[in-house]
């Protein structure tokens, strides 16, 4: 089976989707000729022509707004916002328009678009190239929010997202674009080619939206997480020598509640982990879900490990980032409670 980086897997997903369905079009800033600043769309214009993959003006609202219009016509647009931090000008189009179009028109129109955006820190991008805005989308009715953690999932989830009949926000953790992350910033990136999760099948396959994955089975405690932080949880579990079950949520809305309930009911202990700021973050939703559904199985209070409630600081990003040390302390805390 071929091995790929997440960038290559995303590129491959585009190609597979465009090959199968000529309604799929791809555009955004630098997406066409250059292939995107992270190269996720490299070669698509050459292969499919400049009417299927093209550059757009630097105007995020225009990109998403035009995609909605194209979708209303009957196309399947997949657009790239260069960094998640730049999506704010498009926020109104995503949350007030794409998310609600089917509902407000009672099914008369719909907006099956995919809005891809690189998310999270770990590349010294400072406060304007590092944010994780997933909670701003999960709070909005009508959106599906996806965060892959590895190349196999990224390809399968992106194909599912493009084929889905509703708008999907697809957040790509840039820290794992080019290789898995062992949780420590001072060590080199391990290429996905040497990592079992880097195996990506050729051709068409899907990973269903709304289904979580057990990244690591265990009996001591459950970590609920997604994206880059799946790998941090892995590092912390190994360093702590605990039998940790790591649930990679993959899709935040709709959430795989069954997978969460099954795991936490079994382990009785739960750490909620994400990179986004803590207050009103998606971890609050996860904690409340566990409290509502697993309270009588819990043997310790739920602990949240998140980014601090500050902007993402350039020089201090590894103090901001919830690394294996902080996660390890949280694991010990729930074990000792």
């Amino acid at each position, binding site marked *: 089976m071929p091995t790929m980086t997440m960038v290559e897997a995303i590129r491959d997903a585009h190609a597979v989707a465009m090959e199968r369905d000529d309604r799929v079009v791809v555009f955004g800033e630098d997406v066409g000729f250059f292939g995107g600043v992270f190269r996720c769309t490299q070669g698509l214009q050459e292969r499919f022509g400049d009417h299927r993959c093209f550059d757009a003006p630097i105007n995020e609202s*225009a990109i998403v707004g035009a995609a909605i*219009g194209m979708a209303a016509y009957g196309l399947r647009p997949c657009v790239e916002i260069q960094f998640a931090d730049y999506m704010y000008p498009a926020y109104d189009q995503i949350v007030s328009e794409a998310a609600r179009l089917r509902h407000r028109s009672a099914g008369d129109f719909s907006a099956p678009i995919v809005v891809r955006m690189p998310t999270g820190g770990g590349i010294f991008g400072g406060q304007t190239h590092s944010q994780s805005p997933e909670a701003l989308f999960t709070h909005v009715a*009508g959106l599906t929010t996806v965060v892959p953690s590895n190349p196999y999932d990224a390809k399968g989830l992106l194909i599912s997202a493009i084929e889905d009949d509703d708008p999907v926000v697809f957040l790509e953790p840039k820290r794992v674009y080019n290789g898995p992350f062992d949780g420590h910033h001072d060590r080199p990136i391990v290429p996905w080619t040497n990592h079992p999760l880097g195996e990506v099948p050729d051709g068409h396959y899907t990973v269903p939206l709304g289904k979580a994955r057990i990244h690591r089975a265990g009996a001591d405690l459950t970590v609920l997480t997604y994206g880059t932080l799946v790998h941090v949880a892995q590092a912390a579990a190994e360093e702590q020598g605990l039998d940790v079950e790591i649930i990679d949520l993959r899709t935040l809305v709709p959430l795989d509640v069954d997978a969460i309930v099954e795991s936490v009911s079994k382990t009785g202990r739960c750490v909620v982990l994400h990179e986004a700021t803590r207050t009103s973050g998606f971890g609050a939703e996860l904690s409340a879900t566990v409290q509502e559904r697993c309270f009588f199985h819990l043997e310790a209070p739920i602990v949240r490990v998140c980014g601090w409630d500050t902007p993402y600081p350039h020089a201090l990003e590894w103090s901001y980032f919830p690394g294996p040390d902080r996660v390890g302390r949280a694991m010990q805390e729930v074990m000792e409670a």
Partner: protein
Amino acid sequence: MLGAVGNSSDAHAPSSGLSLRIPQPARGHQPADQVRYVSKAGEMKKPDLDEKVERVALMRKQMVRVLDDDGRAVGEWVPDLSFDDKLTGLRDMMTVRAFDARMLRAHRQGKISFYMQALGEEAIACSQKRALRPGDMHFPTYRQQGLLIAGGYPIVQMMNQILSNEHDPLKGRQLPVLYSAKSHGFFSISGNLATQFPQAVGWAMASAMRGDTAIASAWIGEGSSAENDFHAALVMASTYQAPVILNIVNNHWAISTPEDFARGASATFADRGYGFSIPAIRVDGNDYLAAYAASQWAEQRARSNLGPTLLEWITLRRGAHSTSDDPSVYRPDHESEQFPLGDPIDRLKQHLVVDGDWDDERHAALEQEIAAEIDAALAEADSHGSVKSGVVPSASTMFDDVYAELPRHLREQRDQVGE
């Protein structure tokens, strides 16, 4: 020197501090220069479809006008319309007006929660709907009910939407007048302003990408053209030369805010097209024949792969912004009477009298016929209940159409509503 704020005569005073120009509503003053650069009927030349934008720009101090003060059609913009076509236009406009009047009365009777009328600007949407083709898609605002009425959309259905009753095609989810009718080329109206403008450009781009012949038409009020999305749409339309008509309906009022605030220091809203190399013309929006001709010109340009056209429609919002508005607080007295472009229905009626077989008696008969149709439609719609009478779609329907398929969390919440 804050005392200078808003007083234009002080704007050039010797500098003891900077000052701002803050435009003031005309209330309390002579209604000032309300319409810039009013041309004589027939004066403006009709450019070729592929005329260079610079040459079209030279017409910026003019306005497309066809009907003169006597009701005669003059000049190069006279559209090729038969008497019956014009009578159809008259009927469309009169139906919109009667519909609006009846709905306003229904609001006062407590039958509906909210309404917005198009009083005084009926010609614009009615004429453009007739100038475009079935299959084209309009991305309207809340004052283009003429697109639906001239397009033959069932009047009862419009009223069901306004009443939010059990037959409301939008299942009670939208404010009254925020219609959606894909089958009639009418995109779902958003309450968030200007968002539809880039969407229309995207729809037009998609049509071109698929080698289709359908075009899109974007609608916006002059006030909302201050929104970022208006400018975003112009960038997109200009960049890709999308087959789209970009309509700015300048009815001079954004609720209480005069057009000056959105226009900035530009001479006109049409001027904005030139910066994007988009041919832009100003049109007498109360002249049905000029409105039809200008729409047709823009439509032919789009259909011939000559790209976008911007049309600034000069008209006046004669009524309130909505049933929640009180224009007496901010509007000049006698504004409607002093508006130099008159009333669109009166002017087309006068033209038909001058031009053909039409008179006051026939006009009054048509008026009565339309009023009876509207009354009958309301009686039928009202029999299905309303948000006021509490006969509305069942609560469980609100969970439909959030997603194509009902996800688990909404299924659970729907079950809780039933408890």
